[in-house]
């Protein structure tokens, strides 16, 4: 058994454990042991602001993705097979386009001279172009678009497993369709909700290109802080400390979630 898995273990060791260990080491060692990088992360304003903003954006993105994704997953689950395949393909299709391209596409749509502003002006609904991009709004819109499949797919997988008999039983006992949904379907789909939300939230925490391109320079998420620390300030230690704190937050989230549902579910294996 060990002989069989050891190549895999070696790959994990070389590609994950060593780099992460090196990262952690770099954050505490610079000409001797030091906690200065961590002290900075926890005391300096700009780090706090970035972490707060990142969590706010991730929360907003998760909620919007849930509101948009749930009905889609529900439809894909209830409609006849042909339709559900179509819906799921449309959800998954953007996966094959790079995040960078999609971010630029949103720029084309949202900017002042963009499609949306031009259309609104054509309809004479607005006289001045709206500021839809180069701010947090634009960042959230594009991030939701990119992360939506990570919400829809776990939801759909969970809904697929809810036996139809239960719904019929509910109906036969005299409950209206909306009551069966609220009392039977919705609670049974909650593990999918939790799984989808965890995926989207955690992925959003590490977003980089989208806020960089669509945030107008003011939307400084944590990953951008990491890159600036390296590129502008040459502080590899500080960058590593930020990365370690972000990594630990993600692990903490997974730990909390794992108390409620199996992690396999979140990671989409079941």
């Amino acid at each position: 058994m060990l002989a069989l898995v050891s190549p895999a273990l070696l790959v994990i060791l070389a590609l994950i454990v060593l780099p992460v260990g090196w990262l952690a080491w770099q954050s505490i060692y610079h000409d001797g042991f030091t906690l200065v990088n961590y002290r900075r992360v926890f005391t300096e304003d700009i780090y706090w602001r970035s972490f707060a903003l990142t969590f706010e954006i991730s929360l907003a993105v998760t909620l919007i993705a849930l509101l948009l994704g749930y009905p889609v997953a529900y439809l894909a689950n209830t409609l006849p097979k042909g339709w559900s395949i179509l819906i799921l393909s449309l959800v998954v299709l953007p996966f094959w386009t790079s995040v960078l391209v999609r971010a630029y596409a949103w720029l084309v749509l949202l900017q002042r001279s963009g499609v949306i502003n031009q259309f609104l002006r054509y309809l004479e609904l607005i006289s001045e172009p709206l500021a839809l991009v180069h701010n947090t709004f634009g960042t959230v819109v594009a991030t939701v678009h990119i992360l939506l499949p990570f919400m829809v797919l776990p939801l759909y997988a969970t809904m697929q497993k809810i036996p139809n008999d239960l719904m019929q039983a509910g109906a036969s006992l005299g409950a209206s369709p909306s009551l069966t949904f609220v009392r039977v379907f919705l609670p049974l789909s909650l593990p999918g909700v939790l799984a989808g939300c965890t995926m989207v939230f955690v992925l959003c925490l590490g977003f980089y290109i989208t806020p960089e391109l669509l945030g107008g320079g003011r939307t400084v998420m944590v990953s951008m802080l990491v890159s600036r620390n390296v590129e502008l300030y040459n502080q590899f230690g500080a960058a590593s400390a930020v990365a370690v704190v972000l990594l630990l937050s993600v692990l903490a989230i997974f730990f909390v979630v794992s108390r409620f549902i199996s992690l396999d579910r979140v990671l989409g294996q079941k």
Partner: protein
Amino acid sequence: MNTIRNSGLGCTLLGAIALSGTAAYAAEQITFVSQGGAYQQAQTVAILDPSAKKLGITINQDSIPDAWPAIKTQVSSGKPIWDVVDTPTGYCLRGGEQGLIEKLDFSKIPNAAAMPEAYRSPYSVSYEFYSSVLAYSQKTFPKDAPNSWADFWDVKKFPGRRALRNHPIATLEAALMADGVAPDKLYPLDVDRAFKKLDEIKPHITVWWTSGAQSAQLLNDGEVDMEMAWNGRVSAVAKEGAKVAFTYNQGILQSTSLCILKGAPNLATAVKFLNEAVDPVHQANLPLHIDYGPGNPNAFETGVIKPERAAQLPSEPANAAKQALMSYAWWSSPAGEAAEKRWASFMQK
């Protein structure tokens, strides 16, 4: 400082072809790293290919928009794979102080020794000049266009949307000039005064751009009416038909330099190449292919650059006289580094 020009996959490919196509057993070779895109293509034609031919060496190319983190990792790993890097001058200086860059022996680099002292440092030689200029839309300002940083700051007289680079270098200089400091009296920068002046304009800045491509696109798409941008970026979109223009007045003249990684695998050849790369004739060829000025001012005396072409270039003496020459020495001093760090909190407030 990143992406002065598009990071170029094309050039990485060029580099790869050069790597595989050359005799692996060529007597002398170096690996040269630049920033890719149209810029690296231009220097390949103007400088790299002729230098390789003349010296009988092979120049392998690589490209990266921001070489600094890679230099640091390569040298601290003890086995750098690059030899010569074309990078913003400040990194050569800072790298020199941190032991990442070789100190140059100018007796072996006569072409550089003949250049003005302000154009070189113990670790580097100016390779090309570009300028951070005030660029504007000619649609918004068909006449009476903004012509100084004071105009840029004057939101009443010049209403419109504005962009600045999300970086303190050149931005603090512009702020001080807007506040009335003469271009030749900027250094040492009065950092407090600069940030105070920036606070004034901050509410009117729509975008703080991070890449040259982004700055060009902002102006091209009419997303902003005026901005600080690199001259080559503006002239590139102007050539494609965008109604945009810029002024060299109060521009901030900046350079990238050549420097050699500490412990470079082909040190001796790298030094030879460095001398050849700043040869006035090769240097004079560069602006024939791209809108950046030669790092070696002697290029203007070779007769290769026609006067009307010279007039468009940032480092042409008359244009240079209207501008402030960036002091990389100040920016890599403790005060400069402190100003850089202050930028992050300025942006987030």
